[in-house]
């Protein structure tokens, strides 16, 4: 119970862009326009899925993330549209 309470207090909706390299999180929601939403779905972004931030490019460049066996590059502006929750929820 305490742990549950904790996680809900410390980890309200942060975005994928706010994660640090090496962090693992669970996708909570995707707030993207339809075209981007479709592309993200096709690449395996779904709420409830585990996502790992592998690295960030310099000069505010894109992010490299991993979902399952697929590595994906996306810009920070796009990552900001994906809400995640840190800690292993739902596994």
């Amino acid at each position: 119970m305490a742990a549950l309470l904790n996680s809900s207090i410390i980890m309200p909706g942060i975005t994928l862009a706010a994660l640090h390299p090496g962090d693992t999180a669970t996708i909570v929601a995707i707030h993207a326009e339809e075209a981007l939403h479709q592309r993200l779905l096709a690449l395996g972004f779904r709420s409830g899925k585990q996502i790992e931030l592998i690295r960030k490019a310099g000069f505010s460049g894109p992010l490299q993330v991993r979902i399952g066996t697929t590595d994906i590059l996306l810009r920070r502006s796009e990552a900001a549209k994906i809400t995640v929750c840190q800690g292993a929820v739902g596994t």
Partner: protein
Amino acid sequence: MKRIALLGMPNTGKSTLFNRMTGGAARVGNWPGITVELLSGKILLGSDMVEIIDLPGIYDLHGFSDDEQVVRHFLHDNVPDLALVIINATQIERQMSLLLQLKQLNMNVVVLLNMADEARKYGISIDSKKMSELLGMPIFLVSGKYGTGYPEALQAVTKALRYPTPGMAEQLRSQLEQDVHIETEMARVLRHAVQIPAQLPENLTEKLDRVMLHPWLGLPIFFGIMYLLFQAIFLLGQPLQGWVGDALGWLREAALDPAFAGLPAWLSGLLLDGIYNGVATVAAFVPLIVLFFLFMAMVEDSGYLSRAAFLMDALMARLGLDGRGFVMLLMGFGCNVPALMGTRVMRSRAMRLLTMLVIPFSLCSARLQVFVFITAALFSPGVAPLVLFSLYLFSFAAAILTALLFKGKFRNNEPFVLELPPYRFPTAYQIVMRGWLEIQHFLRRATKFIIAGVVLVWLLTNLPPSAATAGPDTLAGIIGAWLHPIFAPIGINEQLTIALIFGFVAKEIVIGSLAVIYGLSGEALGGALGQQLDWVQAYSFMLFTLIYTPCLSAIATLRSESKNLGYTLFSIGWSLALAWLVSFAFYQGARTLGY
């Protein structure tokens, strides 16, 4: 003839499989309902000829990208007898959604789980029989790279083609909007037929990426690799280019000149000086293009292109481009033509057009020849390298300015979300096949345009017949005089104006045409130019040469790649305008300052 459509997501090795199936005997063709050309090839299956069409890689049948629309329209207007679906076995848990979408269309489907060898390395085990039962379609594990599992799959395709296609529903979209159903179905099949280890073993890709995408080392390594590629292409390509040129020159002297000696002078002039010399100039490009595509195929198939995009995207995003555009821009410093063709890796048309607008400002090796000649003639050996370097800076500045000015016009809403494939060693077969296909495209598309261009220039410099070749009384001379009011403010005289008209065809012949115009060659020509021009005029001429249209081959490529005459004319117009403005600002500025 029965038709097989090859379908799959990007990075599934679809094109490799296509090349393997058709043995490289593919051609480009137009299809009803879509505006892009698709590769197709005919092969003998069983006792019948069958046509295989390579559709663009798509993530989703109801996606919104250009490629996804192309596939949707193709399937709608050209229902294939069989859809051969290629799935990357290492990503099966994700790619199965496309399979289920296709299943709903009620088409004849055969599934190839490609990269079976790679999946095994990851520890992914797939029970293809079980999966076949659950999905109700024939499924085969294959490796397009090594050709394993391939004969069985072809047999199944032959068998499946015997049955008529069940037909396809008209309401593609309404049928397709059943994501919920697809998700539960996916989970069911995966649970029963596929096992994926929870933690992937650390592989070579991750180790390499730790260095190649390192926060500080990544960019220097990228530039190092680009520099080496660039050097290799020209180190190997230039002698080849020279040999091809020599061979064609020899052929002319040994065989064509004597053979055409009986013809009237104007006709042999048109055929030899016009068409043959023009085509020979273009043919000398072929080795460079072959090499470029061999290397590009290596970079692309190895998976490094996506990494380059990762490294350079931060800068390019501010210019309205993306990381891949930078690679092409650099390649343009060798030759603009293959760089323009290389933009095909971009999925968004707007971004492709913007990249193609920027590439012609890359200072290519042909322009370099002109600049080396003129700087040697007009500048002291100490200053000449600095002059050359400054021209490279102008080249980058023109590209950046153009991107900044027009990024609003070619705004693309294509999100930058790319898959990062693992590093793969491309096989020699793959690379050679790719180079061969590209060179066929180039020759088929460029030849007509170039022949027309060189004939036109020859006519301009030889008519009326009474005038001396390229003299002031020829049409070119008259046009030069007529254009003089435009070129006088930027310090370019009538002789140089005629050379610029030649340069429109190819920069390689600028110096040659000056030789014809002045009736001098080599050092004597350099001396004459040095006497007639001062450095401000010469630099202004070089700036104009740098920025205006690269060559007829590049224009032909722009036209065939964009498939849009208006865009091609816009690109030519903009580069001419920018060339004039920059030369004007430089020439008048320098004169005002008293030089």
